[in-house]
């Protein structure tokens, strides 16, 4: 297997996705979950630009990546607002503890 720059980028994308999925599995804190989603979306942005470059249409890849960046930011904002309100109401950010609460 030859290691061209694009192969290296693909390796990096898969590794970042792997680290993100690993974090999603082991994380319990709501704010940390938002951060792990950010890591995952960054690898998706890289993958979109790489796909655009490979297909010879970098502009399309960039425009899709720009949309994903906006959506990613809104996910972070809404997720953090949700986490802050949950912390104020329930006094915890631990997801299993929040799930076990009733009433």
């Amino acid at each position, binding site marked *: 297997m030859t*290691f*061209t*720059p694009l*192969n*290296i*980028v*693909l390796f*990096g994308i*898969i*590794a*970042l*996705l*792997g*680290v*993100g999925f*690993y*974090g999603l*599995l*082991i*994380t*319990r*804190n709501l*704010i*940390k979950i*938002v*951060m792990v989603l*950010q*890591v995952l979306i*960054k690898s998706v*942005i*890289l993958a979109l*630009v790489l796909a*655009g*470059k*490979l*297909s*010879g*249409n*970098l*502009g*399309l890849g*960039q425009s*899709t*990546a*720009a*949309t994903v*960046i*906006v959506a990613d*930011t*809104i996910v*972070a*904002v*809404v997720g*953090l*607002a*949700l986490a*802050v309100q949950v*912390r104020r109401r329930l006094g915890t*950010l*631990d997801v299993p503890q929040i799930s076990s609460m009733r009433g």
Partner: protein
Amino acid sequence: MESIQYTVFLLGAIFCAYRAIVAKRILSATIYLACISALVSATLYLLGAAQVAVMELSVGAGLVTVLLVYAVSVVGDDAMDPASVIPKPLAFGVVGLVAVLLGWMAFPAVRITAATGSFDLASSLWQNRVLDVWIQIALIFSGVMGVLGLLSEKVPGAKEEVEQ
């Protein structure tokens, strides 16, 4: 030379991502997340996507970091990450298997010869993907609502308790 730059930036991003996940203090994890954004935007620039690199650097390393620091300051110092429910070796094995399968499926795609013909970002965004622009406007509007939720000090239901 280009391969070395890609390798350094991506290895740095992967290291920072791992450190952000295993860090106990959320403030440290926030700083690592900003580093990931900077390294990913450098990689995007090397790939030729300069506009998206600038967006990623300003939004990812700037705005999101500020929002995360603000959220950590609101929830306080006790915002630590407790131990995971799933055993870490099991999670590592599952993720490793998924990554190997993904690599096995994705690597043949890189060998495809790049097609010719391209649009620049402006014509692609404003002519071919106008719907994306409208979706972005709607998303930004909902983001403003999210910021209001983040900044609001009032706890819902508190007024009724005082009146009783």
